[in-house]
């Protein structure tokens, strides 16, 4: 399957601070009553962005100066909790194309990679410095250089790497594995047989 090679993502960034931001927070469960992912973008972080009457709360994603940001800055254990792919789907549809954090919950990380959203890990200090920089100048162009394990902005750069396998999948355009998985049909059949599962 021919997929885009995702070697780097550039754009403006916004920091959504807080440790252990769970996928219920990214997309509250009530918005998962759907049979397609299409409309999820507007509900990303809904309950922390909106009051119950639909008016805006104070939240970085509501600030006009961060509108159009495509790189999400987060802290530690981002995306923990539920396995819902609705979370990365909502972030993607909200406009995010890459996430930088101190650490990611595993299922969320895998879901993002499969959608072609690079998740790169950086140090607390580097994230803080970038956060300060984008808060001072939200128009700052930030580049997540997946291929070179680096994030760059202004005249600064820092190390930000992904799992080796995720990086490889993204930069070679193999982030959606279905094509490759399908190729091994016969190997799978023998393995199923060996494990005692009748076809």
């Amino acid at each position, binding site marked *: 399957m021919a997929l885009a090679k995702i070697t780097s993502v550039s754009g403006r960034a916004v920091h959504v601070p807080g440790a252990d931001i769970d996928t219920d927070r990214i997309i509250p469960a009530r918005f998962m009553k759907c049979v397609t992912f299409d409309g999820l973008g507007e509900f990303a972080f809904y309950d922390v962005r909106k009051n119950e009457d639909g008016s805006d709360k104070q939240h970085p994603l509501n600030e006009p100066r961060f509108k159009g940001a495509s790189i999400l800055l987060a802290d530690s254990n981002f995306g923990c909790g539920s396995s819902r792919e609705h979370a990365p789907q909502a972030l993607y549809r909200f406009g995010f194309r890459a996430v930088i954090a101190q650490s990611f919950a595993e299922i969320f990380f895998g879901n993002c990679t499969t959608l072609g959203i690079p998740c790169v890990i950086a140090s607390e200090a580097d994230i803080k410095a970038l956060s300060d920089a984008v808060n001072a100048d939200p128009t700052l162009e930030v580049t997540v250089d997946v291929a070179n394990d680096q994030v760059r902005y202004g005249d600064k750069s820092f190390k930000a790497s992904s799992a080796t*396998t995720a990086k490889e*999948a993204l930069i070679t355009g193999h982030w959606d594995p279905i094509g490759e998985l399908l190729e*091994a049909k016969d190997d*799978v059949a023998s393995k199923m047989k060996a494990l005692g599962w009748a076809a």
Partner: protein
Amino acid sequence: MGKTLFAKVWDSHAVRTLSNGQTQFLIDTHLVHEVTSPQAFGMLRDLGLKVAYPNRTFATVDHIVPTDSQVAPFADPLAEEMIQALNKNAQEFGITYFSLATGKQGIVHVVGPEQGITQPGTTIACGDSHTATHGAFGAIAFGIGTTQVRDVLATQTMALNPMKVRRINVNGKLRPGVYAKDVTLHIIRLLGANGGIGHAYEYGGNVFDEMTMEERMTVCNMAIEGGARCGYINPDDTTFAYLKGRPYSPTGEAWDKAVAQWRTFASDADCVYDDVVNIKAEDIPPTVTWGVSPDQAIAVTENVPSPDDAKNDVQRASINEALAYMKLPAGKPIKGTKVDVAFIGSCTNGRLSDFREVAKFIKGKKVNPSVKAIAVPGSQIVDVLARQEGLDKVFTEAGFEWRGAGCSMCLAMNPDKLIGDQLCASSSNRNFKGRQGSPTGRTVLMSPVMVAAAAINGSIADAREVFSI
């Protein structure tokens, strides 16, 4: 050198190495529910693919099912649409489907074990993070996203990286009034909500050896709350005794063969773990959460933390955020906090033994009139068995509502929801902001017996005092 169960299962299920270095990993059993599967079936249709091994895929409905009236069509048209989608997908793709009409419906992580589908040494995936539950049987079981649901449907495999294995030993004797739920909450409190990232947790020691299968399921269920994608307990005679005679368990000669093989999956005595944690059973108290992450937990006898206790700015911010959301005063006892709702159920604590244990204590007692208390069996079978023992009567006479099977108020994708900033004493697994359906709703996680104590007391209470345990 010996191998861990994880390594044995990994080696026997690795099909090949993919171009990016990940392993194409075979999934023996795929469990499907209505919320995370419709898009996956849609992707199959778009790609013109079939389900590769329909006999290894099992579906049920749990998340959106109402627990009061389960008569179709559901009052919520979106819920009805999702259930119709699953009906159609199961039929079209030839998948075994435990629908409401079968009498076997329930929370997917209750149904799998109950049917004998969950077996030692197997790999189990499901579009649900609490798939970790099945690790209680010595299976490697974990949650996956919807695109991965597609992968497993289409190929019976997925791309996966190996995990490290952390052995968590709990030895000694649990104190009276301390349950499997307290053990798992205590572990998360000690190791953190992110402590298990990259790891499978192997739970061992005499405390787990002596647990029933249902208790082991409670423990493994919450591995994911500690950041571990899967958690497991080595299979033993307790495991085999539970599985014997279940609908999908092998029978006759095949049973003996299976048991002999299942035994071989247990971690070898001389295996080496990436990490070992030792916990004394006597140190585990009845535990409750006070914040918005499952690792924000304390003994019921302790005070809620204060920002002054924080070790650094990040921790201070997170304590402040949690206290503000939970509307709890810093540094004051959690005991006595007023409770509005009491929920006993979920894939963590919605099994027969949970209701039996609570029933022992609530007989002759009454739920405080200020509390709405609901008991939700994890499956239709749990419901029937509980009724046969008269447990439903014990609960309703005490003032609980006895409901139909489903996920109910654990995640509130159904009519069971908190209203406004109601505080819920809950036997479920997540205390995230808004988790129980109201954006300002508050959740305090605890064991079912502690939920019962809170329900009767009208506020968070030490079950050992309320019930003279």
